[in-house]
């Protein structure tokens, strides 16, 4: 039940990121000039009929953010009460602290007229919140507690662990570059795709062209890294569904994401395509995170139990290429 709730919270975080993407993509970030009130109304009493034009996106984003904040608050409270694993409880409170900080950043960026550093921090922290809610969903999954015994098990493979973490970190860096591009108005600094002003490398440079080009180079780098990760996982652990599924999902999402990035440029930043690009970036990130977490499953106690007692499901796993034994279960 807790896992199901955590999944709902993670999904709602994705919805919130999409809503935030719509705010920026429609240029509605300052459509509600005050905060935390909305045109002087208490946020939750703002008349629905007044949600017109840019207010629909900005105030809608605030309402969704409040809902997600409340869901995370409840989740942190429940974890605090029932979760025996200290690191999961701490993760719940970290998610709560992050979403509160995220709300404050959102308010500050409105009151200070969207300064780029604050808006970039707001966009970047949103992805951290998404990672935290996803990590809680992973950690509360019954399959995690069973060490993915029914999904082929997960070996203690240091190479896989390093590759998965590096891929996740690289994707996050790419998202931060994307947020910088987005909040410095550089989304169309290079107006053509796949070329840059008709060439492989831009013939002229400005700070906006540089950050835009960096995002394109970053996309290529992420794609190569994801393919390398997928190749490694499928070659060494192809039969372990707990690893193969997220890595295949990762490859598919990267393909979708690059397509959306191209369409964002070619459509002149059509707001729905642009916002889908933002949320798909988050999905790429958390999918890579799921792979990284599962790759590290063997580093956690072997029979993590939600109820504080050891699971009966016991497996014996070993890596296919020399990793240490991972799962001797009582």
């Amino acid at each position, binding site marked *: 039940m807790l896992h199901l709730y955590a999944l709902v919270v993670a999904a709602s975080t994705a919805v919130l990121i999409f809503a935030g993407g719509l705010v920026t993509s429609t240029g509605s970030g300052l459509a*509600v000039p005050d905060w935390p009130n909305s045109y*002087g109304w208490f946020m939750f009493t703002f008349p629905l009929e*007044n949600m017109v034009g840019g207010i629909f996106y900005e105030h809608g984003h605030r309402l969704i953010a409040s809902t997600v904040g409340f869901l995370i608050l409840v989740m942190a409270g429940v974890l605090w009460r029932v979760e025996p694993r200290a690191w999961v409880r701490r993760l719940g409170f970290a998610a709560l602290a992050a979403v509160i900080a995220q709300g404050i950043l959102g308010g500050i960026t409105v009151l200070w007229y969207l300064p780029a550093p604050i808006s970039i921090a707001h966009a970047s922290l949103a992805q951290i919140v998404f990672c935290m809610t996803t990590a809680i969903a992973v950690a509360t999954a019954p399959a995690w507690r069973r060490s993915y015994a029914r999904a082929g098990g997960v070996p203690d493979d240091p190479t896989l662990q390093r590759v998965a973490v590096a891929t996740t970190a690289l994707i996050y860096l790419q998202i931060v570059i994307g947020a910088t591009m987005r909040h410095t108005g550089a989304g169309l600094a290079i107006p053509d795709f796949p070329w840059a002003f008709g060439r492989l490398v831009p013939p002229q440079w400005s700070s906006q062209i540089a950050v835009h080009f960096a995002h394109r180079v970053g996309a290529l780098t992420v794609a190569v890294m994801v393919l390398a990760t997928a190749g490694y996982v499928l070659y060494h652990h192809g039969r372990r569904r707990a690893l193969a599924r997220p890595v295949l999902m990762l490859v598919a999402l990267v393909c979708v994401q690059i397509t959306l990035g191209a369409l964002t440029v070619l459509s002149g930043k059509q707001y729905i395509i642009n916002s889908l690009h933002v949320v798909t970036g988050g999905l790429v990130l958390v999918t890579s995170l799921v792979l990284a977490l599962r790759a590290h499953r063997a580093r956690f106690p072997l029979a993590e139990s939600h109820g504080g007692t050891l699971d009966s499901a016991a497996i014996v796993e070993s890596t296919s290429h020399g990793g240490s034994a991972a799962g001797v279960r009582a």
Partner: protein
Amino acid sequence: MLSARVSAPPLLVLFLAVGLSACGGGESAPPAPPAPVAPAAKPVDPATAATVTGRITFSGQAPAPRPISMASDPRCINPGAVTETVVTGAAGGLQNVFVYVKDGLGDASFPVPATPVVLDQKGCQYRPHVFGVQVGQPIEILNSDATLHNIHALPMANQGFNVGQALQGLRHTHTFSTKEVMVPFKCDVHRWMNAYVGVLDHPFHAVTKADGSFTLNGLPPGTYTVEAWHESLGTMTQSVTVGAKETKEVAFSFAG
């Protein structure tokens, strides 16, 4: 196995304080800095006042005005509203060009009108679309619509502001403290709404009418640089010399 738990109540209090608080008001404009003290104004002698008049035209094929879709706000009632980026009239006259004396007045100072210039939000469009004020002269921003607007000024030299007007009939007065050509205004609720104000330290400015004509009255005799500014076509300048009680004509032609 259970290590130290994080204390929940402080976080709850912080969350409630941030997420559920209800303080603040609908208007969020920071206070404008005080206007600099100007030297004593020297009125122009009416017996010698000169006039610069003229007409501004657009050469080439003017882009056709595009209809504005106001579907995102059903309370915006303005059938037939079109974009005002390039507005041409008879014989190529170019409307909404801000014409002003850019240089030549030296350190002369001029009385600041106490009468406010009204910027009306009507039919979810700004009226006027382009206008001028003097430094220190109030701008009264009026919401004549039965919907919400925010007035978001984006100056470079002056203090920016973003003010919400949730009700019809609300007024907000603002005064700019530094000369600046031009200060854009926009409404983030209705993305098509924009206006431009030229802020000057003298009264010699005008906005071209539908036929492209303009008049700068009451100039002291002298040699001036006159600039014409258009929101999408850029700027053009000319030098003109006027003697006492003289009227000179200048013409500008913007190319499409």
